């Protein structure tokens, strides 16, 4: 029997948390690239 949690990495406890992590990393990357643009332009 396959459980819904099958395949989850150990640092999250649900799929919802993993999706929030993916979106948070995106926001952080945009912030980081903004800093990069402003710093070197």
């Amino acid at each position: 029997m396959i459980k819904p949690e099958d395949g989850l990495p150990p640092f999250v406890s649900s799929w919802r948390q993993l999706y929030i992590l993916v979106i948070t990393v995106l926001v952080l990357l945009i912030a980081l690239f903004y800093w990069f643009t402003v710093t070197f332009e």
Partner: protein
Amino acid sequence: MNWLDWIVLLLTLVLIVGYGIYQSKRDRTISSYLLADRSLPWYHITLSVMATQASAITFLSAPGQAYTDGMRFVQFYFGLPLAMVVLCITFVPKFHNLNLVTAYEFLEKRFDLRTRGLTSFLFLLQRALSTGLSIYAPALILSSILGWDILHTNILSGSAVLLYTVIGGARALSYTHLLQMGIVTLGMVAAGYMVVRMLPPQVSFTDALHVAGKMGKTNAIDFTFDLSNRYNVWSGLIGGFFLQLSYFGTDQSQVGRYLTGSTVGQSRLGLAMNGLLKIPMQFLILLVGALVFAFYQFETPPLHFDRLPVQKIQGTEFSGAYKLLEEKHEELQLAKRAEVIRLDEALDTDDKAAIDASRQVLSAAEKELQQLRSEAGDLLTKATGNATNDVNYIFLRFITDYLPAGLVGLLIAVILLACMGSVASAYQSLASTTIVDFYKRIFAKDKSEQHYVAASRWATLGWGIFCMIVAQYASRFGSMIEAVNVLGSLFYGVILGIFLVAFYFRKIGARAVFLGAVIGEIFVVVSYIRDLTAFLWLNLIGCVLVIAFARIIEWAWPQASKQLTDGE
């Protein structure tokens, strides 16, 4: 290339093809041949979807794009993580639970055969043309290095991959993707390291970024909302989201990758990890391009990076004019280099007034140089009779002119491997759609599994040959990475619209979605021809039009729709 480069290149290619064949198993069913028996873990899926998306164009064209246009292209990928989340929630469980081999089977279950056929046809058209461009990219490299005709290099780069794709199917594909991504990462890290090491001793890594930045090459983020601007945060997040959702959710070359997952969870995790890794990877590739630009501020770059047309212009009536442009270019570069050194000194002392003054001078010089490059391109076009665009040659020329023996071979191998990764997936997806959605469904319904496996092998071979023919005509496009994405944007929005109606608009029936798709596609093509908007927005427009027209037609001319349950 010297003998060491050739050894590295040939060994790498033999290793990949041999490994692909070694991992092949005797496939007795179509699910085994096309989906590796749905048995692979998440990291296979992550690397396989990345290898499929990152073609040779990614490694060849993207650094050139950063060199000429800056790093703003990275914003194109901002919609990808969001698309991965939607795919994990909606598409992956639905496709897995219905035990599909191709994404288009789902459309017949939800609508009818006609809608499945239309969508499969749009996919085949778009994917075959895009794959031709993907083959053309490394063929260009071989043509430039070996001095061979592009026809022969097209055949070489398109057929090497056919061997293990035809024999090994999805399993061979997935295992070779793993190895390819490892070698590709190693090669690009080495290239990045070398370009920083080759900067003058007084110029640090951050100095190089400041130099590139002051001339507009570190423009990774632009928050301005402008529909005519190809790359900004909004076009990347919104237009890019629809493009990526359509690409990963409805393009069989990607759907076929994550359907090989052993469970829904493994497929989901594979895609989520792609959402985390893709943007940093693309940023680093563009960063290499910006660093190459910084490097060329201290070394004189060629006026035109493609050697062949420059050789051809010698001895023609245009050679004198080209020589004059080269002399002007040399003078301008020398003046610019002196200013770059002044800028570097100003950066060291943090002299803001001097930095601003240098920036203005350099910005004007850069514009003048771009103008010269454009004039040189026009002259070469007149002299050779062919359109010339050297964006795709910039990184290649840097590799062959400056990198040490062995590393040149490795980087040429990287570009070829990247091509093989994406082209292999494309061949297989074209074959699976042809066999599962047309041949098995319409023409030969009750044959044995072994018959379909054999037919899939023949279809792979046939599509391989067709894509190589398309590659022969690919030189007419400009930057290839943009050409591929423009082509995708013409079809992906409409295909995505069909799938979104299938998932989220349960009352809309087959007739309405079919007519909505036809009208939507006509609108998208007309918008593109009339240049009404930047191409990324076509994905959103196509998708919204299909949904809107389908709803209107359903409202005006209602028809009972099929209701689908998981496992149906």
